[in-house]
């Protein structure tokens, strides 16, 4: 297992470099001019100077190489400096946003907490609801519980967040005034009262996202349980005189969780990706919103970096999913 993991990690390096190149070239080809937002009154010579200052004058391969060095060497050094109060990174140029001339990683670090709070909580809530619901619906297939579950799931699947989000804002924020409609990022949680505020402002976006994730995950859990409930080993477990609870929650569940855990692991990068639409609807200034504004502003370094971070996370969690699969399923041998 260890050799498998190391081999996979090594193999991930060329994969990631290739992805980095593809992202870079795609954005290179994409239409859009970083100078487009500069007022028309600015003379062309000045624009050209600005272009040079952004490093756009250099050939593609040089710019790619510089970006790679910045991403894999300069930025980690900065993190190291920040953590241990050293100054290894002094004087080295970081990846700079074209929008606000600040290092992109600082902006990202500012935005991540909102995203993690809202989307991460939604993910955990969804897992906590979906697994028991999936188990029970499968065990009592076609019961009233299962039917209601299927109906709610269908709604969760088919109603997009830009609709459900607006709907809950109108009902719970505008009409009933139970929850605020806008997420206030400046809120500092330092007391029980402000914690309560935080919970309240998170509630609606978390529920909207959780409904969607729960729908997918509970269906998956249910299907996985149903697959296993009909297996011969379940009959064997019953023939041994085991309690129904043991049969279902030990024998069947342990098998059913294998694909579910994999799917959960594969879904984690999406948390960091933020929920673009939900963040827009609730004005949560997380990563999803950052990406959208960066795209609109032609902020290539920001878009490149964010996209590449998602790519790294996806590759990483694919690896984690594979390793988990190997740990959970003794039949899998990685050598």
């Amino acid at each position, binding site marked *: 297992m260890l050799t498998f993991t190391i081999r996979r990690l090594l193999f991930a390096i060329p994969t990631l470099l290739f992805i980095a190149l593809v992202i870079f070239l795609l954005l290179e080809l994409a239409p859009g001019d970083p100078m487009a937002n500069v007022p028309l009154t600015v003379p062309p010579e000045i624009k050209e100077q600005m272009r040079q200052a952004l490093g756009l004058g250099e050939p593609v391969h040089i710019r790619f190489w510089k970006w790679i060095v910045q991403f894999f060497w300069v930025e980690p050094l900065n993190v190291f400096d920040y953590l241990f109060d050293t100054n290894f990174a002094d004087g080295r140029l970081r990846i700079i946003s074209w929008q606000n001339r600040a290092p992109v990683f600082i902006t990202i670090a500012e935005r991540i907490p909102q995203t993690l709070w809202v989307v991460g909580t939604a993910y955990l809530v969804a897992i906590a609801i979906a697994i028991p619901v999936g188990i029970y619906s499968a065990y009592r297939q076609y019961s009233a519980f299962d039917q209601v579950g299927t109906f709610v799931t269908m709604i969760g699947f088919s109603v997009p967040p830009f609709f459900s989000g607006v709907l809950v804002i109108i009902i719970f924020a505008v009409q009933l005034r139970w929850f605020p409609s806008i997420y206030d990022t400046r809120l500092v949680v330092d007391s029980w009262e402000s914690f309560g505020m935080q919970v309240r402002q998170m509630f609606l976006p978390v529920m909207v996202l959780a409904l969607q994730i729960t729908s997918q995950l509970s269906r998956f859990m249910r299907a996985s349980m149903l697959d296993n409930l009909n297996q*011969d080993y379940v009959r064997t477990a*019953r023939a041994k005189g085991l309690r129904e609870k043991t049969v279902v929650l030990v024998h069947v569940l342990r098998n059913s969780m294998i694909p579910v855990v994999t799917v959960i692991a594969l879904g984690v990068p999406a948390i960091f990706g933020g929920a673009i639409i939900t963040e827009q609807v609730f004005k949560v200034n997380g990563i999803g919103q950052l990406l959208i504004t960066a795209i609109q502003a032609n902020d290539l370094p920001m878009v490149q970096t964010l996209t590449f971070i998602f790519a790294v996370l996806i590759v990483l969690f694919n690896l984690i999913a594979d390793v988990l699969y190997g740990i959970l399923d003794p039949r899998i041998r990685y050598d």
Partner: protein
Amino acid sequence: MPDGDTRNVLEVRGLRTVFETRRGEVHAVNSVSFEVKPGELLGVVGESGSGKSVTMMSLVGLLPSPPAEVREGKVLLDGEDLLQVTPARLRDIRGSDVGFIFQDPMTSLNPVFTVGFQIMEPVRRHMGLNKKQARARAIELLELVGIPGAAGRLSDYPHQFSGGMRQRVMIAIALACDPKVLIADEPTTALDVTIQAQILEIIEDLRSKLGMAIVWITHDLGVIAGIADRVAVMYGGQIVEHAEVFPLFNDPRHPYTRALLKTIPTVSGKRAAKLQVIEGQPPMLGAAPTACAFRDRCPLAFERCHAENPQRETVGPGHDVACFHPLAHTAKEGAA
């Protein structure tokens, strides 16, 4: 061999099991009665769909309900009616007094738990042993079924065993708590011939060592001839003929039994075909039978067979047949 006056350890009377499906009822088991004594081996034969598995699973509530419903009958295990006891009591009996072995050893073990865990489970559940004692018992059981290096194999997973070895593990699980009755549902069908012979040998050996009653379901009349004391032939959810091995093979009275015996391949040791060599299809019973289930395939059918369901009648010592036209011993050559 046990003689007539030993008490029956398992006695089944008038068992009726119905499946309530969306397309109507399926009467899978119709008034089945049989009994076994301690140390005795009852063979149950019949083609696919004749209700052998459903009968045995009905005994201890192993069928999913719904759709299955045991409508009538008595299942007396040492005098206690298993159809009347509470679910909790039934769980206490399953795996301890009644052990089960199933057909496919590849899928009957849970792939994600070690073999040791799966053997220790019933032991701990029924015998109340602690971990250490259960481990010792598991090793003892694996040795009993002839798995070499038993202690070292407890932490192995089922996929690390061959098919024959897995079936031995299944036997070990079934025998874990010294059952009074062992029900083996086609335990060798999925195995190849040499392995099959080894498993048969183990069962024969354990039967004499442990003295439990065995109900052995199979398609394979060759196997039955080798190990059974008595044989029950099932057709359409009923036992149509029942006798000791010798009379059954020498003097079959039911036209179906006779047809079955013709399907035994001549090359000894070769596995019997799935008994579908007899022309026609086995019946699907949408209602309790009101005529002989075999009438459409029977060469001897006459009016009465279409109007009435024959009941089992004694035709010799320990030999009974459900047929209006039981073939006389002398008519054997001419008929069928």
